[in-house]
């Protein structure tokens, strides 16, 4: 299959046709919720509130996450909800990316009720615009796949992640883009990834992002165990972060690593890329989607239901026990590899085919259950910056 049916946008191809209501600050969530209620639009909430002490790196990181999320090609139109007029810079940024977007500024609208009314009018226009969209023939290479693992167990690195890696290889070979992320869960495997870097500079960047996370943990003087691996990982047989990482890194398959990108940054070209994100499941997914991922495969050992408001997430269980117990939330079972009824290759094919089917409209369980988790990663290096500034 060289061509699939996707929505054509100015800024790429979408697997979905959502209209998004996005609060730019946490206190605007109530207005966003009220505007979206009863309509086909999707809204997300978060807890970000700007303060004067925000690091400039944080302001930029958050701004590009919000902008990238709203401009994702899965979104036909975005209605932004702001508290004050200063936030309109974000509207310009999203429009400059080629996205249809509008803005409600609550203080200018004249309070909560007026803002909701104004928002509903503007939303109606965006919804009409979206209704006209139709899928067209697009190259498979237009796909940007986010890969993720959560609630991992010891089988993650043996069944589901390598099978996902095989699917990743198929997509990269077809000209697509695959994102490997969760930097914390690459600690201990970075030398294996660096060997596959497209250039010495990319290899160095891989080491840089991993050492950066280690330095953050050391600066806090805390044991990373408990945070990562989490208690469920440990119960599932993962003993150390190295063990977890060696299994997690397999999601990216075997192809050359073209680029290392910061959180929520769009890759410059197709191929396998590494994005610097925390291991936090939601922050990671949001970073990849903000960086342009239109579909994701999420492997899980213990079972987790989460998804994304605007990108379909395919859940792959590492073992048959979880696949059957949590069948309401699991789409595919890589535990069949252990049963002997699938091999890594055949499972990899199955996952690849699921990616194509889901990209073209087949819904996933997380989508049907309405999962819309959203959380923005904050720039975590204040500790390092302070140490550096102190000299």
């Amino acid at each position: 299959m060289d061509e699939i049916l996707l929505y054509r946008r100015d800024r790429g191809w979408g697997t979905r046709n959502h209209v998004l209501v996005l609060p730019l600050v946490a206190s605007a969530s109530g207005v966003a919720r009220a505007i979206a209620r009863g309509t086909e639009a999707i809204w997300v909430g978060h807890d970000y509130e700007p303060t004067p002490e925000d690091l400039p790196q944080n302001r930029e990181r958050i701004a590009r996450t919000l902008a990238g999320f709203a401009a994702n090609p899965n979104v036909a139109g975005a209605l932004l909800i702001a508290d004050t007029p200063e936030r309109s810079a974000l509207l310009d940024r999203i429009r400059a990316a080629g996205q249809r977007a509008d803005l409600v500024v609550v203080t200018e609208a004249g309070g909560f009720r007026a803002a909701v009314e104004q928002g509903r009018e503007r939303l109606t226009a965006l919804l009409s615009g979206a209704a006209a969209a139709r899928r067209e023939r697009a190259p498979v290479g237009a796909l940007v796949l986010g890969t993720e693992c959560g609630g991992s167990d010891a089988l993650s690195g043996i069944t589901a992640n390598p099978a996902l890696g095989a699917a990743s290889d198929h997509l990269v070979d077809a000209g697509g883009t695959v994102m490997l992320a969760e930097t914390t869960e690459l600690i201990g495997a970075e030398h294996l990834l660096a060997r596959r870097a497209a250039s010495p500079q990319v290899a160095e960047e891989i080491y840089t992002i991993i050492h950066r996370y280690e330095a953050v943990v050391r600066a806090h003087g805390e044991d990373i165990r408990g945070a990562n691996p989490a208690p469920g990982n440990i119960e599932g047989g993962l003993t150390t972060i190295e063990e977890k990482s060696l299994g997690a890194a397999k999601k990216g398959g075997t192809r050359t690593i073209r680029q290392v990108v910061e959180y929520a940054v769009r890759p410059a070209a197709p191929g396998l890329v590494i994005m610097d994100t925390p291991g936090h499941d939601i922050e990671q997914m949001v970073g990849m989607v903000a960086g342009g991922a239109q579909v994701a495969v999420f492997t899980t050992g213990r079972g987790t239901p989460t998804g994304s408001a605007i990108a379909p997430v395919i859940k792959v269980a590492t073992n048959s026990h979880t696949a059957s117990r949590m069948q309401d939330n699991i789409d595919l079972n890589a535990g069949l590899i252990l049963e002997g009824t699938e091999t890594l290759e055949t499972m990899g094919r199955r996952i690849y085919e699921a990616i194509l089917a889901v990209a073209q409209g087949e819904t996933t369980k997380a989508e049907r259950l309405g999962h819309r988790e959203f959380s923005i990663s904050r720039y975590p290096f204040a500790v390092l910056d302070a140490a550096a500034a102190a000299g």
Partner: protein
Amino acid sequence: MRPIEAPPTFQGWKRPSGALGIRRHFLVIPSVVCAAQAARTAAEGAPGAVAIEHQHGCAQLGGDAHLTEQVLAGLGTHPNVAGTLVVSLGCETVQGAALHRSIAGRGQRAEFVGIQQSGGTIAAIAAGRQALERLRNGAASDLEVTLTWADLRVGIEAAWLGIPPAQARVFSEVIDRLLRAGATVMQAVSAGRDGPDPRWQQSARGSAGVVPRDATALPYAMPPAGRGAFFMEAPRSRIAQKTGLAAAGAHIILSPLVEGLPAGCPVAPVVHVGIAPHARPFAGDVDVMLDELPSAGAAEAVVAALGRACLEETALEALGDFEMAIHRIAPTM
């Protein structure tokens, strides 16, 4: 200053733990962000149920995870909460089962549902709905009591510390009146690089009457032991301040609207005092509007608004509008 008239009374409930509250919320707490959707769905349509949302519970370093757990436990044992349901995923850093035990251990009526344990979100939601019904049935026996200011804790956000003196004096007077009436006051003070906001000391010095100069310091989200005046170390984020004050047991929260938008709190009614000129567009949304030159009865009006919030649902509560944010002391892993 006119003396306070006959003390107002408020209808409340006595909880199994002995705590006295002015609301009958059934709180649904996801111990981790991944359980929030199930928590929200279980609460939908259940009378009195309030599902909170947060972004944490996983990938948090030791002290930071502990703080999140402390905040969630504080909300779960809040006096305005008649019963708490903890919804856990199962693999998270802030373990839901431990959170449930902690809440139940403090005498709160509490239930637990685990998503992985139940076999997925659909089963967990069904179990959650049954648990909420058990909590409601249990809470029917909570004794109705009459409360006065002496039984209540008022949380106050920090933003008024930086407004012009004419308007700031109103807040000092409100604090005086509340303390005289016997209420416990928790004032959030946001810390800068060099310690608590120095404007707190200046304001305390400048107000007449009972001065909370000797107010006791409280760490973020820590309930005070006893009554009186306290100041709580808090971050700049107004929403995180509300959450911290609520976790410390504030029955009501006074929110000066100096910047940004009004926002509610899941367990405690929020009374917004609009600070002109910023808050002018919100004249219809705030409870009291404070002009640039406040009238003589302004402080009394604010106290009256606080009293009204104890008696009846606020507009924000009716809309089901609230925000939550938990202060973080370490980055996500």
